[in-house]
């Protein structure tokens, strides 16, 4: 990822490009309010990126667009301007900028922002996005898979994890596939190349954990709906990603040592 063309900015712009169809689908599905919300989020993230660029010389990142669209898709409630500004400032500063900018963060900015919105303003109700958004995620996912940014193992493992837990809870998995919030969250939040696990075995464990948690939160807890489920699953799973990676590395190095003496 650091040689030749594939440096940090290329990856950032590719992810931003992959998310564009979702932007169009969300505007078609939810209308102008979604566009306002996304525009406001984008402005706030860019302002904070500029502040940290100025003060700490941390390079800005095109993934601001992913955060903006995540707020558009997964927080379709009726928020006041100051609520969005507060939540996005929290998400981008605490979730990313204090760690050194995009690429060094532990959790995705969109996830941090949305978790703040859900916890701080529980009165606001959210409805999941529909099948149009789900379909709009597919070209982006294919682009990211083709360029090697999205790890197929994470995507596959989280689909398997979600499917197994859904069947275990005696629910219909088709409900998840046509749900735009879930597909968007899976492709752009759970499979975020920065916040997900990066080792070969770790990706499977991470994906199974994230997918299982999504289905568990979506079905087992009646009070929780799909936007909440996918955001909290991504939050919890990405907190475990460094531990999973460390465990995989420790395991493989001990196996190597045993094999080679």
């Amino acid at each position, binding site marked *: 990822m*650091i040689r030749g063309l594939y440096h*940090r900015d290329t990856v950032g712009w590719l992810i931003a490009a992959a998310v564009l169809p979702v932007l169009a689908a969300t505007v078609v599905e939810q209308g102008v309010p979604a566009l306002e919300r996304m525009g406001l989020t984008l402005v706030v993230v860019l302002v904070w990126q500029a502040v940290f660029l100025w003060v700490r010389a941390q390079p800005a990142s095109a993934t601001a667009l992913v955060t903006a669209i995540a707020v558009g898709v997964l927080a379709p409630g009726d928020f006041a301007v100051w609520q969005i500004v507060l939540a996005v400032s929290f998400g981008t500063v605490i979730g990313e900028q204090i760690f050194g900018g995009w690429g060094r963060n532990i959790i995705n900015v969109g996830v941090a922002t949305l978790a703040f919105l859900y916890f701080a303003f529980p009165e606001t109700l959210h409805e999941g996005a529909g099948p149009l958004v789900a379909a709009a995620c597919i070209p982006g996912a294919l682009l990211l898979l083709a360029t090697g940014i999205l790890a197929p193992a994470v995507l596959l493992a989280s689909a398997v994890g979600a499917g197994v837990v859904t069947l275990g809870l005696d629910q219909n998995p088709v409900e998840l596939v046509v749900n735009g919030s879930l597909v968007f969250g899976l492709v752009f939040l759970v499979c975020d190349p920065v916040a997900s696990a990066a080792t070969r075995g770790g990706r499977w464990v991470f994906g199974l954990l994230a997918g299982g948690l999504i289905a568990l939160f979506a079905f087992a807890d009646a009070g929780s709906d799909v936007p909440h489920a996918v955001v909290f699953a991504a939050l919890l799973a990405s907190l475990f990603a460094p531990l999973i990676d460390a465990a995989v590395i420790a395991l493989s190095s001990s196996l190597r040592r045993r094999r080679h003496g």
Partner: protein
Amino acid sequence: MRQALRHLYGPIIDNNPVTLQILGICSALAVTTSLSTALVMCAALTAVLVSGNIMISAIRAHIPTTIRLIVQITIIASLVIVTDQIIQAFAFEMSERLSIFVGLIVTNCLVLGRAEAFAMHNPVVPSALDGLGNGLGYSLILVIVGSIRELFGAGTLLGFTILPTIYGGGWFVPLNLMMLAPSAFFILGLLIWTIRSIRPVQVEPADFEISIQPDRRAP
């Protein structure tokens, strides 16, 4: 005189027990959902700290080194029990709201830390001032965190309405997050960040250095 007063005002910002030494965090998180509980907790801790420091300092020459921790804990625990009983006797509702956290002053690293680090080696008056200074430093942080959490979490301060909430017909949407423990971590973290930006001498050396490869584009 000036040297003695340094023990009093030193721990308030320059050597604050919560923001510099990161001591007493558990209680700082637990009791700061409202300002009134934070204030009672501060008073209780400061009382225990000052009286504990005075007692330990007074008998410091007679405490055998091998059992000093046991003696210190015994004195502190007795003082905590007395404080707890006083709060229960005169402010029962408050003691219900504080639940076990007054009792847990015994395990507060701050109290034992000051007894072991300062009162064991210094005369009574500087020890009392050190206890008071550390108590006030702890109180300052608790009052700041408690005010922010109560104001933005419930729209009140000490029970008086400052920002009328939507539940009472006002305009303010309370931040539910402020009533949850993570918010205290965030406020404390931002506070430490602010203090260390103003006073960079408090910044700790980095655990790891990030190496920059010169031939690599875009960091």
